[in-house]
């Protein structure tokens, strides 16, 4: 089947099998490997992207379901050069060690700050509930999001 999906502002069009998952569309069809496959069972959140503005686990969405929609991935956060406030927050607050969960954390945090520009620490933790970090960096991730909120992400 043919799908047309706008990714980071650019219209993409591919002939795919209906069973193609959105994460594989992004990684294998478009070469956007910033979105990671972690647990592969909709738990870990490493594959989080925004679909029509909502954070979704792209391992649990068919590319066919996103047909006609707009997807934002981590590659789009700083497309124009300077780091986004969230990326700077993660940098400054040491919000990552190995970095595997980071793209998903950034996209989940993007939705979090859009819905709630001035979250408490408890709200940040709740907003990132669907994202796992195996380096146990949660404390610094919360600090990073708080820092970004102050900068006006």
């Amino acid at each position, binding site marked *: 089947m043919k799908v047309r999906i706008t990714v980071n502002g650019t219209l993409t069009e591919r002939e795919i099998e209906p*069973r193609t998952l959105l994460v594989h569309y992004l990684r294998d069809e478009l070469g956007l490997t910033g979105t990671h496959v972690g647990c592969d069972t909709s738990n870990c*959140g490493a594959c989080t992207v925004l679909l029509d503005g909502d954070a979704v*686990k792209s391992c649990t969405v068919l590319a066919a379901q996103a047909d006609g929609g707009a997807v934002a991935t981590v590659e789009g956060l700083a497309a124009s050069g300077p780091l986004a406030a969230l990326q700077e927050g993660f940098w400054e607050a040491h919000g990552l060690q190995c970095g595997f969960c980071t793209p998903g954390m950034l996209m989940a945090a993007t939705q979090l700050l859009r819905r709630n520009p001035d979250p408490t620490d408890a709200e940040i933790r709740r907003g990132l509930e*669907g994202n796992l970090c195996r380096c146990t960096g949660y404390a610094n991730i919360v600090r990073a999001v708080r820092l970004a909120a102050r900068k006006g992400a």
Partner: protein
Amino acid sequence: MIPPAFEYVRAASVDEALAHLAKYGDDARLLAGGHSLLPLMRLRLAAPRVLVDIGRIRELAYVRAEGGELAIGALTTHHAVEQAAAVATAARALADAASVLGDPQVRNRGTIGGELAHADPAADYGAVVLALGGTVTAAGRGGRRTVAIDDWVRGPFTTALQPGEILLEYRAPAAAAREGSVYRKFARRASDYGMVGVAVRLGLGADGRCTSARIALSCVSDQPVRAQAAEAALAGRAPEGDAVREAAAVVLQGVRVADDPFCPADYRTHLAQVETARAIAEAAARARAA
């Protein structure tokens, strides 16, 4: 893990979806948010030959308060249920469940209709809709029919929905004055399935005694259960002290309690009793404030 191959068709309306179901019969499964079905397909526990995507039938995504009832369309996402002012006012326990179900990403995609039709024994809404009461409406080729919520779930992952039918709406009686409802879930970790989920709906008279009580649990057995012995223990009594203790003590009476290495049956029973007592207290507080 990539799902087995399937044919994908998209329905723009309920009638179109019904026509697809009629055409493909048992080979077809409905796809709404996909947050139960797609994981099953990826684990090869389900392998439908045809997926009928109903996710774009926007007229099935709504929350409406009408005539003393709260009507929620099948394609309303958990996030929308969590956010809707009408849900918070008329059926607070549903908002409680929507806010602890899965995680923010799952809540953006998963739908109330999908969860009710999937009928996972550990699903949070299972207990809530039993405690709230109300009905489920389904459409088939022969027209629409309404099923009382107590008759909805027939067993694990099994509902009264017939082949070829689509769930359209859940409808709950809206909370009246001095009525309150709550859902409490006990889970080991963030975004986990519950070990116990308790939903309570209470109505209080001017004297503070229960005029109505419905209590239901999820995650405790192979399907959600009404706790009628516990409801009877509250009947006509103020929801405090001995009445609450007695209700909690019998909350799983007659239930074959799920037993697994992470949560043995005796521990699960203990949790259910503690959470029931807390839920009754919270529902009573909400009823007094309503």
